[in-house]
């Protein structure tokens, strides 16, 4: 966990007072909605179909048990008893009243949580690997650099009114769990040939109506130069990014239109002017931030304790362990992913009761720490393997032990037309139906790793472009239709999926997905050839034929 200093605490509390005054003036009529809109957006407050939606930042997806309990309190006191974890490792509350928002923010500020820059044309919540600091083989904990970026970008005067929103993601592992290639700036921490640690910088990735995979702009930037290099990129974007057309305003469009070589040249020229200035990070600053992260005092434990050996006889436990328990960098410990995708449930939702119970379990079994992943699941990052059987029973009791992590029913979905004012079609009922169709764990395991992503409109909050199967809701003559893409992926080999054919109506979506999965099972070369690899090998045509032959 990162411990905020006095400056952070003061900033958060001052922000609450400022927003309280803004809300008061809005409700009295002193501020019009036009004047107030930008102010509320800068505090994560949207207006959705039924109510205001309040998006709370969870920097790099790390939460303490105390913070999770406070989120549960906000859900219960100010909302309808649940929250929705998002693909930016944030949490959203869907039913909050504007008049009560300052109190909710004040309650969150007590535990160091805020909603700054969870909306608006500024840098958004810096995301990272939800296994940061505990993943085996990691170069170093990427959250240290995420935190440096968080501090640098928070209320940055030059970058508070960018042409459009701006998103960073950082990974320090060979396997990318942070989807860095579909971010405005993606940072891959690695070592160069001299053994120095630094970043490959990718730029211009993004989804939305014009998806692009990020391009490598510089293979190695030393940590001490990270902020100056990032600033050079953002200055070029701030200067040349389009402000005349919201659909062409993201940096990905600028990089595409200029070309990566020309864009890189502009960045280089800017960087040479500032790289040795105030943004140069000296080791002491980095160490100061590093020192504010606290790590558990791990015990020396056996890899295969008796408790685990005995529990292996229970097939239900084994099904969960094989699916949801992952290797940890410390012997005797494990990372446990908690699926927020129960059969028939809305993806990413957790009730206040679940949050409270999980906070207690985190205290008992994970040194009080919880992580949020962009796949809309949670994780306990420091679980002793001897505790896995008893933890599993406790998680099962609160509905957080569905063994479907990374399987076909572990669906990423945006709120869709049930909540969102931008949506064209519903996402959640499609996801719910699919989880019912693929509820059988044996079948799901037979299918293997398969990511389905659903977006209710072209803004792509459900990241449909990079789903192994992507589902995009569109409107045709007032009816909900869905375009299906296959072959997308968000990892280190990120690709945008390919459309397989005409959109299908709401009632046929689940049947189409079943057809695609059945085609895959028939076409795969081996049982361990993943869906996405079969699509890569064969292309979309065999799947297209299967889906549209009888439609």
């Amino acid at each position, binding site marked *: 966990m990162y411990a905020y200093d006095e400056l952070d605490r003061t900033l958060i509390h001052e922000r609450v007072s400022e927003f309280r005054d803004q809300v008061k003036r809005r409700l009295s009529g002193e501020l019009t909605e036009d004047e107030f809109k930008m102010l509320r957006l800068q505090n994560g407050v949207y*207006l959705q179909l039924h109510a205001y939606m309040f998006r709370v930042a969870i920097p790099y997806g790390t939460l303490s048990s105390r913070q999770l309990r406070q989120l549960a309190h906000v859900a219960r006191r100010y909302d309808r008893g649940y929250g929705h974890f998002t693909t930016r490792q944030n949490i959203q509350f869907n039913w909050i009243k*504007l008049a009560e928002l300052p109190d909710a923010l004040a309650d969150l500020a007590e535990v160091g949580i805020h909603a700054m820059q969870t909306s608006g044309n500024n840098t958004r919540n810096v995301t990272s690997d939800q296994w940061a600091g505990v993943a085996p083989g990691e170069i170093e904990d990427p959250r240290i650099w995420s935190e440096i970026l968080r501090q640098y970008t928070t209320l940055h005067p030059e970058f508070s009114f960018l042409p459009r929103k701006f998103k960073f993601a950082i990974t320090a592992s060979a396997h990318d769990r942070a989807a860095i290639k579909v971010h405005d700036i993606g940072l891959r921490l690695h070592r160069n040939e001299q053994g120095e640690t630094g970043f490959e910088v990718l730029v211009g990735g993004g989804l939305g109506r014009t998806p692009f995979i990020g391009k490598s702009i510089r293979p190695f930037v030393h940590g001490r130069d990270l902020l100056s290099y990032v600033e050079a990129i953002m200055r070029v974007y701030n200067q040349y990014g389009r402000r005349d057309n919201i659909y062409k305003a993201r940096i990905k469009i600028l990089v595409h239109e200029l070309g990566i070589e020309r864009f890189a040249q502009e960045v280089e020229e800017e960087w040479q002017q500032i790289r040795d200035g105030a943004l140069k990070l000296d080791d002491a600053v980095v160490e100061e931030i590093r020192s504010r992260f606290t790590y558990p005092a791990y015990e020396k434990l056996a890899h295969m304790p008796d408790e685990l050996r005995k529990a292996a006889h229970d097939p239900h436990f084994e099904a969960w362990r094989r699916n949801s328990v992952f290797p940890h960098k410390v012997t005797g410990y494990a990372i446990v992913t908690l699926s927020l995708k129960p059969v028939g449930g809305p993806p990413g939702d957790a009730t206040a009761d679940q949050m409270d119970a999980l906070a207690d379990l985190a205290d008992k079994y994970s040194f009080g720490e919880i992580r949020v992943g962009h796949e809309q699941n949670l994780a306990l990052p420091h679980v002793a393997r001897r505790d896995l059987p008893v933890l599993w029973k406790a998680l099962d009791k609160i509905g957080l032990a569905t063994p479907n992590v990374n399987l076909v029913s572990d669906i990423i979905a945006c709120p869709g037309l049930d909540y969102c004012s931008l949506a064209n079609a519903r996402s959640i009922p499609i996801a719910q139906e699919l989880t019912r169709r693929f509820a059988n764990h044996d079948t799901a395991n037979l299918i293997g790793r398969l990511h389905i992503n659903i977006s209710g409109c072209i803004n792509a909050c459900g990241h449909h472009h990079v789903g192994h199967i992507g589902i995009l809701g569109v409107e045709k003559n007032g009816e909900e239709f869905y375009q299906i893409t296959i072959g997308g992926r968000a990892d280190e080999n990120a690709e945008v999926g390919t459309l397989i054919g005409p959109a299908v109506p709401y009632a046929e979506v689940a049947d189409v997905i079943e057809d695609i999965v059945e085609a895959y099972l028939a076409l795969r070369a081996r049982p361990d050839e993943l869906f996405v690899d079969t699509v890569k090998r064969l292309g979309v045509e065999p799947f297209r034929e299967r889906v549209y032959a009888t439609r």
Partner: protein
Amino acid sequence: MTSPLEQKKIKITGPSVVTANRTWDGIVVYRTVAQGWSAELADAAIVRTSDDARTLLAESVADDVGAVGAYIAPVEVEDGGEIRPGNLREQIRSAGVTIGLPVQA
């Protein structure tokens, strides 16, 4: 259901209402004949011409403290006078989400 939030040209082809979200709590409201806001669609003022729609919208937008994001939405009026939402988006706004909430009220 294309978002109506950026309505520019106002041209209606059937009975319509003006809807918005109440400022202090965000709930869905409809403009009434009495120039107020109601949470009940049944209370909504119905307009049938583009000119009347423009007038009702202008008056609604002027009440910036009462409600935000006002726009014109289609409705169906039954023979008995009952008003129904004219598309899925408005059905959902009127009747609520189409899914069970994780916590029942």
